[in-house]
């Protein structure tokens, strides 16, 4: 691959480094990228599901994951890993990503990864054909396409240094700070860069000068290269060899910094860990001399570098190798941006007509639309268009749980409150507040525990044993009076609907084997209506293609209870209106229905 990055390149960013990520997204916006360059963030210790960032003046959300495999699974096309782990964790993060596969480039920012680990990591990446940038680097940039983290600095500097659009120089440096400086010098003395890499300051870095220069040789956008080397190491000689072997034919300008090192025999570490000459040929002088002899453009000093760049650029332009670049239009980032305190992802009232998950209300409301309350729930609760069999199942559930007579505690509460002269809403909520682990909660519990048993391949007997150990009766099993011989017709209806319309019902099938075992012990230990609803909801979501994690999250966030709340609200309102209609007086519980046993409080 001749180009390191394109305008479609997306990265997974390991560590929620918000300022660096914001810089990337600002860059994306300025150059007019369609997709954010950061697809996902790995934040192992965070609890949030996403992080908000500015996208121009607006805001977007970038999803957060606990691990690289989860992020990669969600964004398989994100083939760059930006590893911002510390020197303690960066190695493990890289090795995990290499084992996982699917990454073309891994950038590592940490400085001071143990050398032996860095060597093993770099060798493994090389064998797998993965380009490693770093360790100890600020990154790389393909102007006008993709920029890693902080490289290039602020947006103002990026534009001043013409890093917002491709120029014609391929820039490779060790130092990240001087990378920016050179971009600026190249922008002033030539037309900017086509691709740039700061390879990193540690002694053992993944991709070295020659790797990057060979790629740039093949990249048609690059017309000439600039290499800024350092005292120490012999990497520059590989470049000289490549020129001699004819592998590199484009002009190269090069300079090795650290000419001062010759004055100090040892003991003074100039610059990076990699910058220490162990032999005469590793000194900056020797390398500058050898490069000049190989036909590389070498200035007389760092001060002279700008002149050399202007000279080579002028020559290539005169030869017609480099043509004039038309400056692209750039998007301006508003100077004042305000972060929004609330986020809404389900509906929008900013247009002509309010929408439910993108659908104008009128397009789902009237009968001729063919949409029912199940469709509205699927849009507003799940942001998806569920198929008919699923929306009708939802409606069946809502209808099934709408009421269960006046005696159940929620309805009783609502009635007592209504008789105290309170309003519909006050009476309703007293009823709703009863809903929880004991009232209506069996739907949640049944879904949770049956799914657990099924996920873990527990036999019905093992499941019963498991619940016994937990010390709780199995939610969704058992009825006051109904039995196998005298079945609950609501359950019969639900099961019949599922059998006819669901693609499959694996959890229900499992639950029925459990029911066989429980009813063999006691006749009324049947799968009740709560259990059936909870279990069939899981089957519905499975058939709709949700992952097990997503379904677990529905269960733990109380979504199943929500169906009960929505349905039973209908019944409670009925009871409240009934009380209003009957104008019954304030309720007082009869004293003879209360067992009084009040002992004198002891002094302690």
């Amino acid at each position: 691959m001749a180009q390191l990055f394109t305008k479609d390149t997306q990265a997974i960013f390991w560590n929620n480094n918000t300022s660096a990520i914001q810089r990337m997204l600002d860059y994306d916006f300025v150059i007019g990228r369609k997709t954010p360059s950061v697809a996902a963030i790995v934040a192992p210790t965070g609890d949030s599901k996403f992080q908000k960032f500015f996208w121009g003046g607006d805001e977007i959300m970038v999803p957060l994951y606990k691990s690289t495999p989860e992020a990669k699974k969600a964004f398989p096309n994100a083939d760059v890993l930006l590893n911002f782990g510390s020197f303690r964790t960066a190695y493990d993060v890289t090795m995990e990503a290499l084992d996982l596969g699917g990454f073309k480039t891994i950038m590592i920012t940490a400085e001071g990864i143990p050398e032996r680990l860095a060597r093993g990591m770099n060798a493994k990446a090389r064998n797998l054909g993965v380009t490693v940038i770093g360790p100890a680097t600020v990154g790389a940039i393909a102007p006008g396409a993709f920029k890693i983290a902080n490289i290039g600095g602020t947006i103002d500097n990026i534009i001043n240094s013409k890093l917002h659009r491709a120029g014609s120089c391929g820039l490779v440096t060790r130092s990240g700070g001087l990378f920016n400086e050179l971009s600026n010098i190249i922008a002033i003395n030539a037309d900017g860069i086509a691709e740039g890499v700061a390879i990193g300051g540690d002694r053992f870095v993944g991709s070295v000068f020659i790797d990057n220069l060979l790629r740039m040789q093949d990249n048609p956008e690059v017309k000439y290269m600039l290499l800024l080397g350092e005292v120490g190491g012999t990497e520059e000689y590989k470049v000289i060899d490549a020129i001699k072997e004819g592998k590199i034919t484009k002009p190269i300008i090069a300079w090795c910094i650290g000419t001062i090192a010759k004055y100090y025999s040892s003991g003074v570490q100039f610059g990076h860990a990699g910058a220490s000459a162990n032999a005469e040929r590793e000194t900056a002088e020797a390398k500058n001399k050898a490069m000049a002899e190989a036909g590389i453009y070498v200035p007389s000093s760092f001060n002279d570098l700008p002149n050399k760049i202007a000279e080579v650029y002028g020559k290539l332009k005169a030869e017609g190798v480099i043509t004039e670049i038309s400056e692209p239009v750039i998007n301006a980032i508003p100077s004042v941006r305000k972060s929004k305190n609330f986020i809404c992802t389900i509906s929008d009232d900013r247009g002509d007509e309010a929408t439910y998950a993108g659908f104008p209300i009128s397009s789902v409301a009237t009968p001729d639309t063919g949409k029912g309350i199940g469709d509205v729930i699927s849009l507003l609760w799940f942001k998806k268009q569920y198929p008919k069999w699923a929306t009708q199942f939802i409606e069946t559930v809502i209808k099934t749980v709408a009421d269960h007579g006046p005696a159940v505690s929620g309805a009783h509460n609502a009635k007592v409150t209504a008789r105290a002269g309170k309003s519909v809403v006050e009476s309703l909520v007293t009823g709703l507040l009863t809903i929880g682990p004991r009232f209506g909660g069996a739907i949640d519990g049944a879904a949770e525990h049956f799914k657990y048993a099924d996920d873990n391949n527990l036999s019905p007997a093992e499941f019963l044993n498991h619940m016994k150990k937990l010390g709780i009766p199995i939610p969704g099993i058992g009825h006051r009076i109904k039995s196998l011989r005298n079945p609950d017709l609501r359950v019969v209806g639900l099961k019949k609907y599922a059998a006819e319309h669901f693609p499959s019902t694996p959890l229900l099938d499992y639950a029925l084997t459990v029911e066989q075992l429980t009813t063999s012990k006691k006749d009324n230990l049947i799968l009740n209506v709560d259990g059936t609803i909870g279990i069939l909801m899981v089957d519905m979501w499975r058939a709709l293609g949700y992952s097990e994690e997503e379904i677990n999250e529905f269960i733990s966030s109380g979504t199943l209870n929500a169906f009960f709340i929505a349905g039973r609200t209908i019944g409670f309102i009925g009871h409240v209106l009934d009380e209003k209609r009957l104008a019954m007086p304030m309720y007082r519980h009869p004293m003879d229905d209360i067992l009084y046993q009040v002992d004198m409080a002891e002094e302690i």
Partner: protein
Amino acid sequence: MAQKAIREYDAKTILAKHWDKYFPDFTYAYETIMVQNGAELKSAASHKTWLANKPLVAKPDMLFGKRGKNGLVLFRDNKPGDVSLDKAASWIDEKSSSKQNVYFSFHGDTPEGEPKTDYLTHFIVEPFTPHEQAEEYYISATCVGDDDVLYMSAEGGMEVEENWDKVTEVKFAITETEEEIEAKIRANIPKDVADKDKEGFAKFAIGFFKAYRELNFAYLEINPFVMQGNKIELLDMVAKLDDTAGFMMTEQWGDIEYPTSFGMEEKSPEVMAIEEADSKSGASLKLTVLKPDARIWTMVAGGGASVVYADTIADLAGIEDLANYGEYSGGPTTGETQFYAETLLDLMTRSKDPQGRNKVLIIGGAIANFTDVAKTFTGIILAFEKYADKMKDVGVKIYVRRGGPNYEKGLKDIKEAADRLGLWIDVYGPETHVTDIVRMAVEA
């Protein structure tokens, strides 16, 4: 610097600590002690009985080699192997009482070049081990390029550089497995290792190379080791550690010290304070004092830029004018920058220029990627406030060049602060070439 030299005593201590893991077929008595004077040695004899019972060898343990040729190995009083505890103690006191000349290079036995002169402060003392020349072997390992290299020779105790043809060199890629490494070592045991020792040599070399790798040595040399059956003596050792592995080697290495080399300036308290601050910070703070009386001081941001400034000062002003080398980078806090600046200002205002010239402070840097320039400059300004009077006494001209996030504010703030404090200052941004302020300062 990732690779750091350690004392011979510490190298032996690390190997002894893990001896049974790497050398289960051999024994090593680990009779060795490091002392700073004779009294310390004598008092140690109460718990290390071998000091009084065995003839001794004493030599300085200060990271330099060629101790024999420098006449700094005590192994004979009247004849080889007769050094007593008293003799060793008095020899150590004698050698440490005045500065000693040490040559680092020899042609044959003739010293070459200039000697370094300094006090000897650390000595290693061990029993004298009578042995045959044939029992001495050489082994070392290090990393060359991308590979590990194991060097082995049947000739121990020699000048390796002068006898390179007697050394077998085996290269290993980092990816090679334990089995591949073992087979390769066995296949390359030097031919002239005595037949009776070949198996033992192979086992020792395999363990040695494994210890080198697993204990994160950057360089490890035993020259010579003595093999008498399954009994090993480590007569002379040189070692460097990869100190970036320190965080995972605390248990394996124990409490390790990285001494400065002989003849180098002892680290000043200021330099040690900066090192301490550096180790506690996510940012990078580095300082080396080259010539405390020199005229030009640098406070440069960035590892690369700092080198470019040093290069340019050497080119334009000459090396004798450069007082220090250092850099701060990686987004240091205001407090860290202030501490760094105060340390420099304190050092540079201790004396006036002997020739009566102004001193020069170069506050330089490239265009920062993410370091907030105004924030770091706030730290420098706070340091100015504290040292303004001293700076004026000495006569300091300040040249600033910097770019990066918030640089306009940073430059404006530092200019205003210097003007308010009556300090001479010139301030430039990214439109000025990065090292051009050096030219301005030198030409002024």
